[in-house]
């Protein structure tokens, strides 16, 4: 304690040290190793050598572009779906929830209490070929006699949407809940219709929540491979499936490492395009929350 009194400036660094060192050693350093690995050539048998093999990146983009595009596409559609599905509910809880707000919020995060893989397997049961949903759709002739729900792009996108829904709904709720209700009343006093007050006041004020929710949903969704594996067919495989197979089944580490960085680059570009569209101050604002 005496030592701390004499060197007061050191205290924050001592507090930070253990956690920051942990993140440095097991988050930053591994990223460095991944980058190093991505520029190597060789195989598991003969060993790998660092050769500045930028060709790994070229091969990753050339040979697997359809997987990258499919990943961003599925993740993008699923993110849009989570936004459209959960905005009305977040609005309803924030403005009409009353004293049951906490209970509704608990219901929103309830899926997280069931193991990720088990809730995805539950969708496998629901969408199964002779399940209730598929049979009903066949009876209504909305689905052909040999039509399937499982092992389609639709099933994968639905699975991703369901699994990441709370990541969208919660930030939306937080930003809607923080809105000063008097601003909406003021708009209505100035003869704005309900719809116009929503469009000009509520919606812009909830944008930080939209941005935060979009990032929290899109980034993990783009790297996901569980939904594609359990609910999709080989034609619906995402880049996560390829990276996972290259690392664990094929042991082609340099190619898999290069793909990981291409994936991160793709996500970064998508986020930057999005940031330009909604305005950067929204993005940094949501990051600060």
């Amino acid at each position, binding site marked *: 304690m005496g030592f701390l009194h004499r060197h007061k400036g050191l205290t924050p660094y001592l507090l930070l040290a253990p*956690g920051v060192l942990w993140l440095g050693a097991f*988050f930053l350093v591994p990223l460095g*190793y991944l980058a190093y690995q991505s520029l190597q050539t060789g195989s598991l048998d003969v060993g790998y050598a660092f050769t500045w093999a930028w060709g790994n990146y070229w091969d990753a983009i050339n040979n697997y572009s359809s997987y990258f595009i499919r990943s961003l596409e599925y993740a993008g559609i699923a993110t849009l779906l989570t936004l459209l599905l959960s905005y*009305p509910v977040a609005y309803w809880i924030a403005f009409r929830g009353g004293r049951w707000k906490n209970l509704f919020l608990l219901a929103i995060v309830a899926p997280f*209490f069931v193991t990720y893989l*088990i809730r995805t397997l539950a969708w496998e049961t629901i969408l199964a070929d002779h399940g209730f949903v598929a049979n009903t759709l066949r009876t209504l002739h909305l689905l052909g006699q040999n039509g399937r729900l499982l092992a389609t792009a639709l099933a994968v996108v639905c699975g991703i949407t369901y699994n990441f829904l709370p990541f969208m709904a919660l930030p939306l709720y937080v930003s809607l809940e923080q809105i000063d209700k008097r601003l909406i009343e003021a708009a209505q006093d100035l003869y704005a219709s309900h719809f116009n007050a929503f469009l000009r006041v509520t919606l812009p004020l909830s944008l930080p929540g939209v941005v935060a929710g979009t990032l929290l949903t899109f980034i993990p969704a783009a790297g*996901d491979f569980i939904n594609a594996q359990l609910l999709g067919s080989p034609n619906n495989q995402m880049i996560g499936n390829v990276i996972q197979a290259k690392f664990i089944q094929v042991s082609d580490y340099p190619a898999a490492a290069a793909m990981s960085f291409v994936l991160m680059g793709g996500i970064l570009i998508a986020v930057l395009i999005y940031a330009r569209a909604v305005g950067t101050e929204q993005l940094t604002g949501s*990051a600060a929350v």
Partner: protein
Amino acid sequence: MSSVVSAAAPPRRSFWSAAWAFVRRHVLTAYSILFFIYLLLPIGVVIVFSFNNPVGRFNYTWQGFTWNNWRYWDGVPGIRDSIVLSLEIALIASLVATALGVLIALALVRYGFRGRGTTNLLIFLPLSTPEIVLGASLLTLFLNLNVAFGFWTILIAHIMFCISFAVVTVKARLIGFDRHLEEAAMDLGANEWTTFRKVTLPLIAPAILASLLLCFAISIDDFVVTYFNAGSQVTFPLFVWGAARVGTPPQVNVIGTAIFVIALAAMLFSILIQTRRGRSATA
């Protein structure tokens, strides 16, 4: 009296405009109810199929009710060990990550120092990196250093991705913290350590509890990062993954249901404590 006034006052409205007003008033509520059904439906399926008596290997269609899956919950080889391993990892990881997270949060909220922005970024980055990249990069680290995969590599990985969640949770509580309370304790002669133990710690205790619960939940649910760094060890999610390839036994649903019920109870308990504390603080 009032009925006379209200009967005379409103202009006569047609049936259709009344119906339209009714729809407008309730459409959002009706949608929300449907939304919650959609959200909770898979959970219902998990619970119901934990009582299924499946024929053959696949637990996809309802065959009949039985208690046997619950009675013989560890009747599948390997399931018990996987649960024990998951619980051990989640317990240690949540304790260590929360301790490290509290220290970082204290430094970030309490002190101005060089490198604060960088530290904030370092906390934020793991949260915005896809899990597959977190898992893959740790895998290459351990491969290059020739570390044997198993319990310790899983634990290291879990602590790593839990720290950021712990920091964010505790920071939120510390920001709304009245520092006069600590100054008062110091004015009354308490030293820094006593002040921390008697004033600061009790006040951030709910945030610490929330952080422990969150880290425990994230750790016990993690599949991707564990899959890359487990070696031959099998946590519960890895067991489910392996089982899903050959046909999931109903015992998986039993464990899933049990985890759900326990997590729900812990969450309700945490909410109860926070509202109680909130009430006593305002009273």
